[in-house]
């Protein structure tokens, strides 16, 4: 087990190195002078020149990379042109909102998708299964922003069930619990949009994982013991079917955040996605590139957690 984990963690290092090179390349590919954005714009011209020298403006490329990497590791990702403050603090502010949105959506989709996927697998080729299958096909095929816009038009605008955009009612002056309720009300529609799409994926995955497990010999053994069908499915089969599903859930955290980019844009939800989009429109490349870096880092961590969790829930790995 320990060996497995160490190997997993060691494999991250070259990947992180690769990610940093890609990001560094993007910084230099982006239009404009990347170095002007790396220092506090409020300094005097004299100070700026000294600082430029310190951060490696005049150095050859490899040295530039090393110096940039050193600063990035310490959390110094430069300055935002639009917000006139350090990129990291801008990102962290928005990151929080994205995490709330995507984790809520993930929780909702897991709670719905796993039971439905299991039932669908145990009733293969019934009407229920066909409906679930077609629904999940639609879920993986619909552009998420289109779904989001349909929800806004029909549920928010035509029926008035939900607020149209944002995170709180502007000028409402709510406080305390009311403020929280207002927040939840705003959160619901983007969560529904994200969760529906995520659910479709997970349902398909749970269903096929379950179908594969049901064919296994040990399921027949469980039945031959005289176990009730309900226990055969929900104890023996599900426990095994969930092993790959848990991994997929972890990995999907990263992709959920990526899907949140478009959803956030449509709902004007002040998260990473909206930040990236706004920053591209404002040509604020330091923010754009740093967002990619932060998200890549986050996905890497999520994948690592998936591997660790896998080792914990599958007894076969522990003793290798």
């Amino acid at each position, binding site marked *: 087990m320990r060996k497995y984990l160490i190997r997993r963690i060691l494999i991250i290092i070259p990947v992180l190195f690769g990610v940093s090179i890609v990001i560094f390349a993007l910084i230099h590919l982006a239009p404009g002078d990347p170095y002007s954005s790396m220092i506090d714009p409020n300094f005097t011209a004299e100070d700026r020149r000294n600082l430029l020298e310190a951060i490696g403006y005049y150095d050859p490329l490899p040295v530039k990379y090393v110096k940039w990497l050193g600063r990035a590791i310490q959390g110094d990702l430069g300055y935002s042109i639009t917000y006139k403050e350090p990129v990291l603090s801008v990102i962290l502010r928005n990151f929080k909102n994205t995490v709330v949105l995507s984790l809520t959506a993930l929780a909702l989709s897991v709670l719905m998708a796993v039971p439905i996927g299991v039932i669908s697998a145990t009733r293969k080729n019934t009407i229920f299964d066909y409906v679930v299958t077609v629904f999940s096909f639609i879920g993986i095929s619909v552009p998420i922003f289109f779904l989001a816009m349909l929800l806004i038009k029909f549920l928010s605008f035509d029926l008035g069930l939900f607020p149209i955009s944002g995170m709180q009612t502007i000028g409402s002056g709510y406080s305390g619990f009311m403020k929280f309720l207002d927040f939840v009300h705003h959160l619901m529609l983007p969560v529904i949009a994200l969760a529906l799409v995520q659910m479709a994926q997970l349902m398909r995955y749970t269903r096929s994982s379950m179908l594969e497990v049901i064919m296994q010999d*040990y399921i027949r053994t*469980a039945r031959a013991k005289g176990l009730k069908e309900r226990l055969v499915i929900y104890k023996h089969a599900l426990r095994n079917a969930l092993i790959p599903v848990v991994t997929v859930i972890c990995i999907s955290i990263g992709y959920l955040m990526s899907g949140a980019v478009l959803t956030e844009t449509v709902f004007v939800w002040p998260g990473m996605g909206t930040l990236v989009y706004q920053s591209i429109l404002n040509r604020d490349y330091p923010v754009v590139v740093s967002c990619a870096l932060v998200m890549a880092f986050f996905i890497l961590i999520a994948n690592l957690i998936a591997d660790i969790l896998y080792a914990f829930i599958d007894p*076969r790995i522990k003793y290798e």
Partner: protein
Amino acid sequence: MPEALLEIQDLVTSFKTTSGLQRVLDGINLSLRRGEILGLVGESGCGKSITSLSIMRLLPQPYGFIENGKILFNDKELTDLSIPEMESIRGNEISMIFQEPMTALNPVFTIGNQIEEVLDIHQDLKKRDKKEKCIEMLKLVGLPRAKDVYNEYPHQLSGGMRQRVMIAMALSCEPRLLIADEPTTALDVTVQIQILELMKSLQKDMNTSILLITHDLGVIAEMCDRVAVMYLGKIVEETTTVNIFDNPLHPYSQGLLNSRLGNIQKGEKLICIPGMVPTLSDKPQGCFFSPRCSKCIDRCKTDMPELNEVKPGHKVRCWLYVDEDY
């Protein structure tokens, strides 16, 4: 003669396939006495495993189903039982061991957990007693360090040990009937003999009947009191083990015996039954074995013979022994 524990009458089991219904079992008649070991032999695909799954009512769903016939077990008609009634018989009065010990145990539960589960379903034991009984069973099947095995996962055990665990699990409720579907096929030769001997000695102690499914005539010679030979969903011969080895009547049984490697001297050619087993969708007219039979007569090509008792305790399905004093 002790009465029959299991009596199968005219059992027909079919599968729904893309090309229509296929009869996998075509009127099986079989009886198993109390305390007896009955061997069921035949080439792969002849319906041996489907017979056992039919008895257990565990045919692969939704394709397989019992079309016709009766399965009388201990005076109960198994095909009429409700699902809960059947569940209370499985693992309790009828147990089963499968061919693949490597995959027959659930990889994510401990051995103890999986054996105790059977006790949970069929017996009302306190937690303490359950564990004791479980370790006792593990010792009974000859597992060293039974207490450690109790907490281990299947993948930590070898194939032979897993099959012992399967036997412990199957026998933990002292079943009247144990169905063993090729229990040693997947094991090393040395381990095979150990497992067979274990089964035989436990069978004597518990007075359990065994339906032993195998394609290995050596296993039959070692274990069984009586033998039924199957070919393409039908029983073609049923008699004592001594009879089948000394005086096999059906040409198919004769062929099976002749093709054993033990009979062949060095330098001789291997003997085999000519032709291939026909597919289920393509059963021959008349006797199913006729196209491969060296003693085939005209009648074989048109009519299927009945399973007749040609001598006391010796039934055979062949025209050669009808209306004839052989």
